[in-house]
């Protein structure tokens, strides 16, 4: 974990008797797209909130480029969070809100303007720069949601379900964008789309009930010894979803 961009070790978060995150450890290398997969209630969002400094942990350490992350503002600005729900200002135009949030991160107006324009172009929203966010389609709003997480050029980008509700065209655009992000930044993403994770992630961690079940590249997970029985049963290479279900079970979660 010495050269890791993000190193999570023995992370614990409890809510009363319930351990939402229970000794979780993983490392994300610089320039890597790291997928955090798990069923509902597995502890993904809780983990993300602790990494972003929004939530105090009860145990373990989080190191961002070797610096401990605590619930405080200094660390947070090194992380760009794109929450699962779409968080945009409906009464501001796409450009206005990117510039505004840039200024909130302390960027000079000129820099915030340039960065906002570039992000809108990268995410296919340049022609809607002057449109109010409230008038955009769901897919456009989700892309704007991602742009807002990047306006301050964070070292680590955390994307919580970035592809939820996107049409195939938008999903491909976002996938390509996430891959392009990894050229300069490190990306931590959560998703329920196993196919999406297999396509975009360099490393995948599967967690359940706050514990790490597996952590490897998608190819290693689908071709490893642990899933040979799946391959035999199906007479084909198992998918990431097969591996996921094999590890977490088929029981419905709350």
């Amino acid at each position, binding site marked *: 974990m010495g050269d890791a961009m993000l190193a999570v070790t023995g992370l614990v978060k409890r809510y009363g008797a319930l351990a939402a995150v229970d000794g979780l450890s993983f490392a994300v290398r610089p320039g890597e797209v790291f997928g955090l997969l798990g069923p509902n209630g597995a502890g993904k969002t809780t983990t993300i909130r602790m990494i*972003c*400094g*929004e939530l105090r942990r009860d145990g373990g350490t989080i190191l961002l480029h070797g610096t401990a992350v605590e*619930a*405080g*503002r200094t660390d*947070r*600005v090194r*992380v760009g*969070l794109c*929450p699962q*729900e779409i*968080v*945009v*200002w*409906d*009464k*501001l135009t796409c450009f*206005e*809100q990117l510039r*505004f*949030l840039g*200024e*909130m*991160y*302390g960027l000079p107006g000129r820099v915030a303007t340039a960065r906002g324009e570039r992000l809108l172009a990268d995410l296919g929203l340049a022609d809607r720069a002057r449109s*109010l966010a409230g008038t955009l389609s769901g897919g456009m709003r989700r892309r704007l949601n991602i742009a*807002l997480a990047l306006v*301050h050029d964070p070292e680590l980008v955390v994307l919580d379900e970035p592809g939820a509700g996107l049409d195939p065209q938008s999903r491909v655009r976002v996938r390509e964008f996430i891959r392009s992000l990894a050229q300069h930044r490190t990306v931590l993403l959560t998703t329920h789309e196993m196919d999406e994770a297999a396509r975009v992630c360099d490393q995948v961690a599967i967690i359940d009930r706050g514990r790490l079940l597996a952590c490897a590249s998608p190819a290693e997970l689908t071709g490893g010894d642990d899933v040979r029985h799946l391959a035999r049963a199906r007479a084909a290479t198992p998918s990431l979803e097969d591996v996921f279900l094999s590890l977490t079970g088929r029981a419905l979660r709350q």
Partner: protein
Amino acid sequence: MKALAVFRKTLRETGRDRWVVALTLAFAPCFVIIYFFAFSDTMPAYQLAVVNLDRGAAEADGTRLHAGDDIVASIAAAKRASGRPVVEVVAVDSAEDGRRRLRDHDVAALVVLPADLSASLLRLRVDPASSASAAVHLEGDLTNPKYIIAGTLAMAATDAYVSEATGRGGPLRVVETPLGASAERSDFDLAMAGLFVFAVVMLVYLASMTVAREVESGAMRRLRQSRMRALDYLVGVSAVLVLVAVAAVLLTFAAAWAFGFTSQGPVWAAIAVTAVTAMSVIGIGLMVGACTRTVAQAFVVANFPLGLLMFLTGLMFPLPPVHLVTIAGHGVGPFDLLPPTHAVVAINQICTMGVGLGDVWFELVALVVLTGGYFAAGAAVLHRRHLRGA
């Protein structure tokens, strides 16, 4: 600079929320118009039903005295300094008809002049030692303040006529001196002080909804992630709300002027008082917004403080003084814990009595202290619930 960015952003959002802004700005001016038509441009002439049963009486020279008619004329002749009548006499045929009008609140009081009124007065004029007496009946709803006023005015006019008609001057001569410019003020004028404060009290909706919108959308979480400080947010948002408050007050003043309102004191002083009051209302709005999760919830919850501010501060109608302690010679009661109470008193003094800010120092000090407290409380609740760490 971040506070400026928050200000610009909030101003844009607020400006684009046209319905909410329009209602916030237009509510008080609309009430100005309603009040104008409800109270006209003068003090109301109190409606007095009179049953004149007086049969008249022949004087020594053969002419007839109609004291009943003379009293009715005397009552109707009572004028304010503005020359407007004080009492409007409604002649009714019977006491029963008068009582029906009393029950229907068509009139404030009923006076029944007896059949032997003129005869009794003539006997007294001829023989001052006479025990002649005529019973003038006064009826009305004692819970109706207008009854007290109309009845008193009617009896005073009757008394004055009787003194003159019988040649018996009263032992006292009452000289009336109106306080400040109160003789010139109409009910419409007097209601304006409350409406100026009402214009900023309406801000409790806008303030609470502005905060609740950020909470509901999750934008507050985004802002907390940034380098924005809680103070930046408070300053930026509050500045926009104060701007809206000043606009609302100016519009209300403009509407009042258009309908004949004039202030006896400096208008800037009244505007300054409302601007300070606005900060306390913003503080309450911040509290409501911070304690609710959705805009709809904020809208519903904001009705509670709005009700308190409207009905327990003398803003819509005068309240009886409830004094628990005395501070610097001023009685202080529970209603005095609400900043608009002091604002209404101060603006009334400025607009009606023509005083300056120095003359309402107690109200100003109370207003500033309370405003500081409410705004600090609003900021603290918002910080604790949504901006901690920012």
